[in-house]
């Protein structure tokens, strides 16, 4: 695997859209060619090289390419956009759409990410060592096909609307989580090791939510059914089990109605 290091040298006055920072776009290119890749500051077309110092050549394929992003990229959007393979390490914090529509590969962010990270993710892995913004692993506006595969780990807190319209895959949040988790979900699971706010699992058709900490306000559409002992994300504990959203439509499998599940650690 070959490593390309890009270091922010001229920060944008506004925000930079750099959907070309991905192993797929870098693959097969030299440092000089990578520096020529297009980026946009507002309506102003530019090149990656105008903002970043690029060192190292990419591997022949995306899978053979590792990108290390250094410097302040808090105002850079779309890093890892639609990536299918390879690896990106962001040493600081990044802006919106990190790993948006990604299908494979791995993204590690040492700092925080803003909203819309892993939008409609299909596969691969994302690790955010700081906090995640709103709409982590959610669907794009209007689409009923949200995150369908892959794994996201947030070591800090997450914003609102985690896993909206989620169909599959897993999101683990070590910290706390803001309102609306897995709204409209039809599969997948979200594990919140910290506290949750409210509005969990609204309009949920299928899927699983696990909360280790507190929940401010429960949705009325989640009915307490029993207590279960489970091993979740390596932790064995007793959980109160709720099913819901009982106001929503549900499929039947073998004559039995399938609900979404909410497990709250006791």
């Amino acid at each position: 695997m070959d490593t390309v290091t890009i270091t922010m040298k001229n920060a944008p006055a506004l925000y930079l859209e750099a959907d070309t920072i991905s192993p797929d776009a870098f693959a097969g290119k030299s440092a000089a060619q990578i520096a020529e890749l297009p980026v946009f500051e507002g309506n102003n077309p530019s090149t990656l090289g105008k903002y970043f110092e690029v060192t190292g050549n990419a591997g022949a394929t995306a899978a053979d390419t590792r990108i290390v992003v250094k410097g302040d990229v808090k105002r850079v959007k779309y890093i890892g956009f639609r990536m299918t393979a390879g690896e990106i390490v962001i040493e600081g914090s990044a802006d919106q759409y990190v790993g948006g529509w990604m299908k494979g590969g791995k993204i590690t962010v040492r700092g925080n990410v803003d909203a819309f990270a892993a939008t409609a993710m299909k596969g691969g892995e994302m690790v955010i060592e700081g906090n995640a913004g709103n709409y982590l692993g959610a669907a794009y506006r209007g689409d009923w096909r949200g995150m369908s595969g892959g794994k996201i780990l947030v070591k800090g807190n997450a914003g609102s609307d985690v896993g909206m319209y989620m169909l599959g895959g897993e999101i683990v949040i070590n910290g706390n989580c803001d309102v609306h988790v897995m709204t409209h979900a039809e599969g997948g699971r979200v594990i919140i090791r910290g506290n949750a706010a409210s509005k969990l699992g609204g309009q949920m058709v299928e899927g699983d939510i696990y909360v280790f900490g507190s929940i401010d306000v429960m949705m009325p559409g989640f009915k307490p059914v029993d207590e279960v002992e489970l091993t979740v994300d390596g932790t064995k504990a007793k959980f109160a089990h709720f099913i819901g959203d009982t106001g929503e439509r549900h499929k039947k499998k073998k004559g039995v109605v399938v609900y979404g599940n909410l497990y709250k650690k006791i």
Partner: protein
Amino acid sequence: MAEFIIKNGHVFDPVQGIKGDKKDICIKDGKIVDKVSGSAKVIDAKDKTVMAGAVEIHAHVAGPKVNLGRIYRPEDKLFSCTPTKGIERMGGGASIPTTFKTGYEYAKMGFAVAMEAAMPPLFSRHVHEEIRDTPIIDEGAFPVFGNNWFVLEYLKNQEIENTAAYCAWLLKVTKGYAIKVVNPGGTEAWGWGLNCLTVNDPVPYFDITPAEIIKGLIEANEYLGLPHSMHIHPNNLGNPGCYETTLDTLKIAAGIKPKNKFGREQVMHLTHTQFHSYGGTNWGDFESKAKEVTDFVNKNKNITIDTGNVTLDETTTMTADGPFEHHLTGLNHLKWANCDVELETAAGVVPYIYSPSISVCAIQWAIGLEIALMMKDPMRCYVTTDHPNAGPFTRYPRVYKWLMSEKARKAQIEAFKHKDKVLSQTAIGTLDREISLYELAQMTRAGPAKSLGLAAMCGGLKPGMDADVAIYNINPDKPIANPDDIEKAFSRCAAFFKSGVQVVSNGEIVNNGNKRTLWVNVKAKENPQVMRDINEKFVKYYSMTQANYEALGHHFVPNPYAIEVDATN
């Protein structure tokens, strides 16, 4: 205006009976002429196919439900919006393109005219604003009448004259083109959450049946002598076994003769026939009844149809058949929009994915093609996708490919997950007919133009007609090696002239043309009773005043082309 001469092309023109002969086409002052001066610009169409501009008889391209589709489907545009390019404004939308993209895409495929198939009269001003912003192509819009309270009340008492007077008034104030009927009576029933699934189901409160509405509107249409016939989307669309309702609907036209000065020979146009040709009792034993429906139409010359071909895409369904869309969202659980329109109609919108892996979708695909292949007279059967219901209009070239190549059909059948089911539930595997270029010109040009009463104006290349001329990269002298070449050639014209202006060159837009709004201006007998009734309904039941109802003024219809009808005798 410039003169052009298109030389050496293979001309297909059903209006003149030209079947691929090499013939020069001359254009002057926006019209086809016999000859032009020596200064005419020469366009070489050697080894190419030349046809009149195509005519779209039924598509949902402008108006409130189309725009609701755009508004509520951002995902239909994700990663597919196109930038401003030369004189082309930016565009977007796969199944529901923006107005600019709609005009450009039609023009790039060689279309000169498109009819918006369902205009809610209360929203006519909206429809016309969108038509205004759709470049190049001439457009008209069909106001819907089949659930209109005036019509229901007049026809309950068999008052054809009053119905006709009301239709004439509504066409004028909405700048409408034809009498459209959607799920007659059923959409009014939907006002209460109900429906009419057969032609004999009574409409709640109004004490009338769909059959009476259909018959009355055919008679009113012929009473006025409108250019187009009554254009119907029958009851019970899209349900297994619906073909019986379709046949009951078609039978209502029996014995009625067309009366008009436009050369139109039908009294009923059955639209998106594919959706109305289903047998079976449920989705499990779902089967094609294309044969039963086309047999009937083949025998009855006073009916024309269009196909409604399924293109196997993700699309957005939209129809004035409100209860149907409610039914559909119950099946696929995708987002449901509905709008009931006071005194007049309703509309619904639901996204739909015609997946080749689902047997019902594959059977629907086959039925649409069967209809076109089983219809004996291509002048009475027109290719549509009921855009965007069975697929986007941008897929026409693919539908042409399937119609023109048995090989292409076989390849698609092979690709289906449930191909055995397609073969057992339809006759598609037994049909070896391949539509010729001449027949295609009938089904997409001369035929729909005649059915719309526009035969003197468009759909052909006869001197005196509008100079709408499309040139395609197809050499009819050579066998087509790969059916995909058909799709490619019809997707982008080599050149297209609209009203004598070259608007497309090598598949690119080079001129925004001079688009017109087609509407039908009926001079009808004065009818004070109907005028009083209209006045009363506005005062009592409409939510806006009569004075603000008309689509009037330059910002709605900047370039009108009125087809005059004298119905005073």
